[in-house]
């Protein structure tokens, strides 16, 4: 359906003939300075730069501040702001209508790590073809500042006192639940966020992106894990990551520093390039992924980058071997068996 740009088209037109504005949404209604807005902007930039047709994207979300954000990007895409913690099920069913579409979902730590924990786990198990972004701030914003399940133990909040429970590490949960793409980033590092969104979008299957996105209103004490100051001080990138779409020549980003470069091929033929900062980190090794997460927890670090990727598992739609025509374009002749088949059924009854 997409049209290639005309010769001599303006430089800001991407490969499907759209400008960045075609990827924007409504003005945000979240707090000024909210990390979620920064992530929305990176989603816009990433999909624009990837030349994704907005009509090929289905937006999904649950309930919470983060789940409001699909309104703030990609107005030309269909979207469904569903129920608390149950975005995964809406998305799982919603993506069956036309498997050529890809899901871009936004959830929060309240939405995913509490009521949504079950559905979060099961959408990974099923490897639904979707980017699953968790805008993680350790706090419930929309209900005005209660602890979420990712809040660190000992965190103090104004009305809640001290959090007595251990936090849930969503990346660790994702790795052990057989997610095929697990990454973590920090909203204050927009370039990495954008590159990871691009990589996640190109991954065929479920791509979990846990983005620490500080709540400027309810959880931004300097010592809190989900605050900007803490994040900036404790961020430990696994790799410098540059995403190169398959349709253009592979070029290294000018910011890329010296060091070992590893290419990871995505399902669609595109490649992500990882630059290992400390050692040869192998994101295809599940054991290594768990190790770095465990070590980060021990060392009080925020591991960012692509933590784990597996490219050998079929997506849910692949598993079901659906017809080439999208299911939602099939008509009565495809769907209603012929009268003779009913005679056969009746004959099968006693």
């Amino acid at each position, binding site marked *: 359906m997409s049209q290639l740009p005309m010769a001599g088209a303006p430089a800001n037109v991407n490969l499907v003939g759209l400008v960045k504005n075609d990827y924007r949404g409504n003005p945000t209604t979240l707090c000024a300075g909210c990390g979620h807005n920064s992530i929305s902007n990176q989603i816009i930039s990433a999909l624009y730069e990837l030349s994704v047709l907005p*009509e090929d994207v289905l937006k999904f979300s649950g309930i919470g501040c983060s789940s409001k954000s699909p309104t703030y990007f990609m107005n030309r895409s269909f979207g469904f702001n569903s129920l608390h913690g149950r975005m995964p*099920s809406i998305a799982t*069913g919603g993506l069956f209508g*036309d498997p050529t579409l890809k899901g871009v979902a936004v959830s929060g730590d309240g939405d995913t790590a509490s009521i949504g924990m079950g559905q979060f786990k099961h959408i990974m198990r099923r490897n639904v073809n979707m980017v699953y972004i968790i805008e993680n701030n350790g706090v419930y914003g929309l209900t005005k500042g209660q602890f979420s399940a990712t809040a660190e133990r000992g965190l103090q909040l104004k009305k809640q006192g001290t959090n007595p429970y251990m936090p849930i590490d969503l990346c660790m949960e994702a790795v052990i639940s057989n997610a095929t793409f697990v990454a973590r980033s920090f909203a204050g590092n927009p370039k990495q966020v954008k590159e990871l969104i691009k990589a996640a979008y190109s991954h065929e299957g479920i791509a979990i992106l846990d983005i620490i996105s500080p709540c400027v209103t309810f959880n931004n004490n300097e010592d809190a894990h989900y605050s900007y100051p803490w994040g900036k001080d404790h961020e430990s990138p696994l790799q410098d990551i540059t995403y190169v779409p398959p349709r253009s020549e592979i070029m290294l980003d000018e910011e890329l520093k010296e060091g070992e470069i590893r290419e990871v091929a995505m399902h669609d033929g595109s490649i992500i390039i990882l630059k290992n900062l400390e050692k040869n980190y192998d994101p295809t090794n599940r054991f290594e992924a768990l190790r770095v997460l465990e070590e980060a927890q021990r060392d009080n670090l925020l591991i960012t980058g692509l933590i784990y990727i597996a490219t050998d598992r079929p997506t849910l739609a692949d598993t079901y071997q659906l017809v080439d025509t999208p*299911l*939602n374009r099939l008509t009565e002749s495809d769907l209603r*068996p012929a009268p003779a088949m009913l005679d056969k059924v009746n004959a099968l009854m006693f």
Partner: protein
Amino acid sequence: MNKVVNDFSIIVGTKNGSGSSTANTTILRAIFKMGIPVSGKNLFPSNIQGLPTWYTIRASKDGFLARREDQEIVVAINPDSFTKDLASVAPGGAFYYADDIKQPITRADIAVYPMPIKQIVRSDTSIPNDFRDLVGNMIYVGTLAHMIGIDLEAIHAALSFHFKGKQKPIDMNLNMVKAGMEWAKVNLEKKDPFYLEHMDKTDGLIMADGNTAAAIGSIFGGAQFVSWYPITPASSLAEAINDYFPMLRKREDGKFTYAVVQAEDELAAIGMAVGAGWSGLRSMTSTSGPGLSLMTEFAGLAYYAEVPVVVWDIQRIGPSTGLPTRTSQADLTFANAIGHGDSETIIILPGNINECFDFGWQAFDLAERLQTPVFVLSDLDMGMNQWMSKPFEYPDKPMDRGKVLWEKDLEELKGNWGRYVDKDGDGIPYRTIPGNKHPLGSYFTRGTGHDEQARYTEDNVTFKRNMDRLKKKFLTAKEYLPKSVTHMTEGATIGIIAYGSTEAAINEARVQLEKEHGMNTSFMRVRAVPFTSDVDDFVHAHELIYVVEMNRDGQLQKLLTLAFPEAAMKLKSVAFGDGMPASAKWVCEGILAKANGAHTFEAVAAADNETSNNGSKGAN
């Protein structure tokens, strides 16, 4: 002794998980094959193995297929229920039992036939040890066959069907049936009057259960997406869909036009179904009461967001630790108001196997036409038991996909559309479907916080306008819903209203009321909520109406009272819920208790006062 032919009930008491269901359905099917109207009901516990379970079979030359309380023939195989089973034999009836049960026979008013089941099985050395208990059940089939006259040919046909033509199990079981027959021929003397004789009353009919019918009907309705979570008594619906999809929707390229997903729970089952309905698929889920509770929030969202989806509720009794394997009609008011806030849902109510099939495909037409969840309320008795039925009939209408706009439609409209605009004045807006590539084709879906263009707003005036349109849509729905089934009796001033599987009991009760009590009644079986206009006519055409249903609180009666408040005083509830399928006896007694012997409005009102004054009630 006068022979009683083709008019008696058999009950078999066994242990759950002992393989007796093969034997029992063999008897049922064989009687059907002999042309005798017959029904079978499995009364089973929530248990995999060991607890007592009963199977009732009723042969009725007059075609009455409801459960009966009286059992003329009792077969006792389970020592644990022996005493109860012996006591349950109707006076003058026959009692067959496994003679390894060493318990006293305390009745002299019945014919008693001990059967040396274990001994006979052991004498056939060709039977592997593991199979002895299983095929042993066929001894009582053979004994009964000889004593009451079940055709061996008919038994053979039933076994061939059951074992899908596999010769080895057919032979092994048939040999046991023959052994039972031979033994009975030599050793038993007939001392009771009950016989079966050939009829032609089942010609052209089939036997099926409602869940299978619903599954096949759904497939002929073009089902594309089914998500479900196991729950008795609904599991067999989704399992039947799994069974029949490959045959009915087979394609040359080997690819699939459908997907069935076993979800992680009912929350996800309906979530996926709503997602699929939103993405343009004919989408459904199936569940029972507790599952329906879990589906509530999504059902509410789907109502407000106007997403088509079909939800089958195979009703049963209460919580999982209630009587989860017993039938009920107690989800009606819950389904009617399911959701949160002002929500009124569309409910259709199949009353027999054919309607389970018909509503299977019609539910999708309704859901897509009305862009709303459609609930189909069946029950365990209809869903899981085998019923005689006319063959399924091919849909008489093409699919109704409702108001959907694709790219070419939007081009014609020059992109001028709004998701929630009531363009046609019937409350039903136009929708687009994900994958629509028109740049103006998409919209953002949320609950009620939107305007006609699906833009976010919390404006009070816009909200109310939208809610009023939803109400209008609900009223529009009445034009599309299935009308009631009505049996009018000339001159009758008393009406009976019911729904679902109770029809067999009510039809029989109406004959008894007329013959034994001089009470003429008309009968209406409603098939949808909101009530279609014919219900209004029926309510107002009768002086008194008994609303018969299988629950405690008279849920249908309550909904009728809300719909027709001016008729409230004449809508009398005959509600009874103990988990057993309806019988003519309780329908009769319930109505008579309510009527207190008098069939006028005044008399019933007086009886009502009296019982409430006494603080005790009969059938309420």
